[in-house]
């Protein structure tokens, strides 16, 4: 049986999660404004979102339970 999340939505959420994690680090002074991480984190978030959605590590037992009542 195959399981999957929602890759497109996860890509969008991952991109913005990465973007806002980068902004958090900048606004709280953890990294400098010109740090390349601000550019990289949204891309990492996008890729991680797609991969996690394809892997779908959460809620497998619930999904299996629904298909086999």
């Amino acid at each position, binding site marked *: 049986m195959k399981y999957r999340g929602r890759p497109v939505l996860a890509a969008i*959420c991952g991109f913005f*999660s990465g973007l806002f994690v980068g*902004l958090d680090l*900048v606004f709280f002074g953890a*990294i400098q404004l010109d*740090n390349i991480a601000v550019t990289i984190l949204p891309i*990492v978030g996008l890729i*991680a*979102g797609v991969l996690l959605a394809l892997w779908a590590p959460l809620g497998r037992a619930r*999904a299996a339970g629904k298909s086999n009542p």
Partner: protein
Amino acid sequence: MTWVSKCACSFLVSGLVVVAAAAPAAAALTGGCSASGTQLQTGKSYNAVTTNFAKIPRAGDVKWQGAVPVPATKRPAVGEVQVKFPFPVGDVEIGHWGKDGKQTGSNANRGTYHYDFPSLIAGVKALVHGRDKEPSGVLCQGSVVVQVEGTSPLAWASLVLTVILVLNLSLTIRARKVGK
């Protein structure tokens, strides 16, 4: 692998990205020029030749002075001050001199400057760098990381949005059955 160890792995990878991307320490003023300033409210003095980080109050006055190692003759000196933003924005110019063809006749200057930054940029560490190029070949370059004291209200808004987005991400990666 439990969800706790999955989360721990995600945070470790994120941390490595941040550490690997950490910028090198900024260089101070070079080229024989001199510059210094005293923040009047805190009484702290900064020498541009040796200072590469300054944490300043959001508003205040700075008594400053600067000099270039050339004779005080009429000449077309050119320079600018820029703030460095992340790729792809790059350097943003916040001030310049001599680019409009105007000539200067002095080799030193001093004064008191009043500044009042908006609270939105509080806490942000920005790399400010500048240079002055003299026709005699003297080139002075300097940079300093400036941080305004306090925390921006945008920081809390950004933190709330981050939590919402991460929760949203966790919903989009939840398994659903596809195929057989």
